């Protein structure tokens, strides 16, 4: 009975339809109605995510819960969905974050609220589509369509420099992905099918692989983002409204990592093997150099944005270090580390952006210099933020530790120098996170405004505490997540490995 439910389609279309309903409904004139609809749909989506976890067995490492319908027969493009252990955690994360964003928006967005809810719902549906699509063109459609609501979200509800930031965000992402589209069409025309599994099986010459790999890197490195194409992220984060920043950091960045795993590794393994060192080098630059940049920031959101880039450096490092490793266990651990890092960073950066949003709603400033001694007036908030900051620094017991630890451990087996540089994050991350915390939270209240701040209300408590619980749960007991992912990751690595050996 339960297996009959087209759960992936529901996860995509329910938020999409809900989003359009809210958009075309009475809007702000009947705000309560719009709010209720958005909230109900978000809660249902979270339940569906739970159901997805229940229905997904994950033991085989294969695509499960597949759905298939013809879409454009003349081009052999199909509506083909399916999930494996890599996609499921990301979909669950999306549903969870969406609920928090909707709840968070209820107090902090002041105008065109219904449209804001609608944008968040549309984004959720489209992002679920990206993770569930098993047809390359379907994937691309979701991937690009997602930019439109995000573009509007930053542009309408963003800060003073929002137009520059949102157009930059759109152009950077589009720049990368259009070349990926050319690559996908090329392969699709050659293979006669756009099914990702068929593309993964397709043999390609080294020359083709190199160019297609470059196209993939252009698309995914911008999204994740890697140095040197990361510059859109600080701008977009700073200008985006709280919810926008959260979605951007928690989920959109993960699509880059997901894309590397789903496309770049299995489709172009030889080229990836050949050029892995470049990507590893850039990952290390992100981890070390961007860490220093984060130290120098005056703006809280910018600081978290740079810290995101540094953390995503671990994801790319974990993914590409596998080409420097000889045994499957180590590389499986590296990719697992990358995946855990993605999920954990989604939670931690989301929590940090929510925390900054809490402060911004009260003081209307993002400058660190405008704060100080917040803990005196907001003790509960101070305590929660402590946890997030420590998680961001990679404290054992929080989810932030596990991903970084796995990646460092496996990169040690490849080359101790790589591990050395990567481990610098333990110092740098702690430095910029704790220093931020010290300047904002500790000390004497800076002025009257700070002294009279109200502590977080129930709505904010719900958001921050649920994130805190997730971060701790994942940090103390990551085993369930690893069990979901492991068979799929090993399957992926075997596929990549066999293609590599076949070519050699």
């Amino acid at each position, binding site marked *: 009975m339960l297996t009959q439910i087209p759960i992936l389609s529901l996860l995509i279309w329910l938020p999409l339809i809900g989003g359009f309903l809210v958009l075309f409904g009475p809007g702000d004139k009947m705000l309560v109605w719009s709010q209720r609809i958005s909230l109900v749909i978000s809660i249902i989506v979270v339940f569906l995510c739970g159901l997805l976890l229940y229905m997904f067995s994950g033991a085989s490492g294969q695509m499960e819960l597949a759905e298939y319908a013809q879409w454009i027969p003349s081009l052999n493009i199909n509506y083909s969905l399916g999930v494996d252990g890599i996609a499921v955690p990301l979909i669950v994360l999306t549903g969870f974050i969406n609920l928090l964003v909707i709840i968070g928006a209820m107090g902090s967005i002041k105008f065109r609220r219904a449209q804001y809810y609608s944008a968040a719902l549309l984004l959720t549906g489209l992002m679920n589509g990206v993770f569930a699509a098993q047809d390359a063109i379907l994937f691309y459609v979701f991937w690009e369509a997602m930019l439109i609501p995000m573009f509007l979200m930053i*542009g309408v509800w963003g800060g003073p420099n929002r137009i520059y930031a949102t157009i930059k965000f759109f152009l950077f992402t589009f720049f990368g992905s259009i070349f990926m589209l050319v690559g996908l069409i090329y392969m699709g025309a050659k293979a006669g099918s756009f099914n990702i599994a068929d593309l993964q099986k397709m043999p390609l010459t080294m020359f083709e692989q190199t160019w297609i790999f470059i196209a993939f890197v252009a698309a995914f490195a911008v999204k994740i983002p890697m140095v040197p194409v990361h510059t859109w992220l600080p701008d977009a984060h700073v200008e985006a409204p709280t919810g926008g920043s959260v979605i951007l950091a928690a989920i959109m960045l993960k699509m880059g990592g997901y894309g590397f795993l789903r496309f770049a590794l299995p489709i172009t393994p030889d080229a990836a093997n050949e050029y892995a060192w470049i990507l590893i080098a850039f990952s290390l630059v992100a981890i070390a150099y961007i860490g220093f940049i984060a130290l120098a920031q005056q703006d809280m959101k910018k600081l978290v944005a740079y810290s995101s880039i540094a953390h995503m450096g671990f994801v790319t490092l974990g993914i590409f270090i596998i080409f420097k490793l000889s045994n499957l266990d180590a590389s499986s651990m590296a990719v697992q580390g990358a995946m855990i890092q993605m999920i954990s960073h989604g939670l931690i950066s989301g929590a940090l952006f929510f925390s900054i949003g809490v402060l911004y709603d009260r003081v209307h400033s993002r400058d660190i210099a405008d704060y100080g001694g917040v803990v005196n007036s907001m003790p509960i908030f101070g305590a929660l933020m402590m946890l997030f900051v420590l998680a961001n620094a990679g404290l054992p017991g929080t989810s932030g530790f596990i991903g970084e630890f796995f990646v460092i451990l496996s990169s040690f087996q490849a080359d101790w120098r790589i591990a050395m540089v990567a481990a610098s994050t333990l110092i740098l991350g702690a430095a910029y996170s704790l220093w931020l915390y010290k300047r904002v939270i500790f000390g004497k209240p800076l002025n009257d405004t700070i002294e009279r701040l109200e502590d977080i209300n129930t709505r904010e408590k719900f958001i921050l505490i649920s994130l805190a619980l997730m971060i701790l749960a994942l940090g103390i007991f990551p085993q369930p997540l690893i069990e979901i992912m492991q068979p799929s990751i090993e399957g992926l690595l075997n596929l990549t490995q066999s293609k590599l050996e076949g070519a050699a």
Partner: protein
Amino acid sequence: METTLSLAQVITNINHDFWPLFPELFLLSAASILLMIDVFSVDMDRKLSYNLAQFILLVTGIIIVFQFPTSQDFLYHRHFIHDPLSATLKISMVVLTSIALMFARPYILQRRILRGEYYLLHLFSLLGMMLLVSGSSLLSLYLGLELMSLCLYALVAMNRRDKLSAEAAVKYFVMGAIASGFILYGISFVYGVTGQIHLADIAAFLNDNEASLTLRFALVFIVTGLAFKFGAVPFQMWVPDVYHGAPTSTTVFLASAPKVAAFGLAIRILVFGFAGVLVDWQNLLIILAVSSMLVGNLVALAQTNIKRLLAYSAIAHIGYFLLGLIAGNTQGYAASLFYILTYAITALGGFGCLIYMAKGRQEVDRIDDLKGLGQRNPWAGLLVSFLFLSMAGLPPFVGFWAKLEVIKAVLNVDGLIWLALVAAFMSIIGLFYYLKVVKVIFFDKAEVETRIRAERSLRLGLGITSIAVIALGLFPTQLLEFCQKAFQYI
């Protein structure tokens, strides 16, 4: 022996079946009757003429659908071709003309432009286009082309009191005449070399003989003329001025149906007649396509006038559209057809929204005039941004599939991958100025906050085009197959 034929003999000598020509015949006679009705009409608003014009279009469309051919027939001494391609193009042009009239109606009403003739000129121009896409000899093609163009010149000049409009009309006429001259000159060479006027005979000639230098010379002239009509770089100079100067309602029409007709002309001449020298015209088109994409997109970046921006974007789109023709196979032609059809729909809406925004007799000229459309009328803002995002080639709008199709067409041809990369790169630049328009619509504060209320026919036109853009974007299959079927006999 006999010197004169009696009328009865003439009639019995006509053993043609006129059924295939029926849409054109109906359109001609109905338009002529409408002309008479219009002369004696006392209604200053010409409501009747408008309604009748739409009715004529509807009936013409129905006739074409009803007699949709399942084979390829050469009729009337092989001057007329009746095949799925011609019927496909005719249906599309009828639909486009009908939507263009919806946009035109309130515009010319507000500006008191001569009204009855306005609709008639559309109909006669459509007649020219229909003959054009059915032409199977250089003669009938040329006749159709001229009938279409003459009506268009008059339409551009319709706003007599406006200097810009008059200037645009003169420019358009001079440039159009030169282009026709080029084509005619090329045709005369072709006839001189081959001694043939029918496309099929020319193709046969090319099959049997090596193409001489003179024939290639003629081909250059014909392609030049075609490029003029398309507005491809380096023959694009007239496009921005004419699009800008012409009454917006004429620009709406100009940017849509005639482009589809020009596509028909290109296919008839290049594919039906000159398939034997494919490589020659392929190389010419590559130059046109690349320079159109480059110039169109780059110059559009600098525009502050929305009509000129759309004009340059039209030039860029012609560049993408040519990619399908360049591929030189039926898939490529189908991709081009899909591209030009979807672009025509989008362009209709894109220019139509300028009429929508126009207040009274004031023209919408600057991009900034669109400021706050999303605030003043959220629905219209959303629909208009659909159109612009579709032009940018973003999914889930139809422009994405059009771009995907043409890129796929060139990727299938060895050695043309670089063209696909150029197209991809230029579409990033294109995205920037389309986003600029969306930004103005949604992010900028309106100068006047009054809510926009538009006439029903405008709302209908905008609704049809933008909903088509999203619906075809989600379900492109039918239109894709429709386009592919058009080329089944080639």
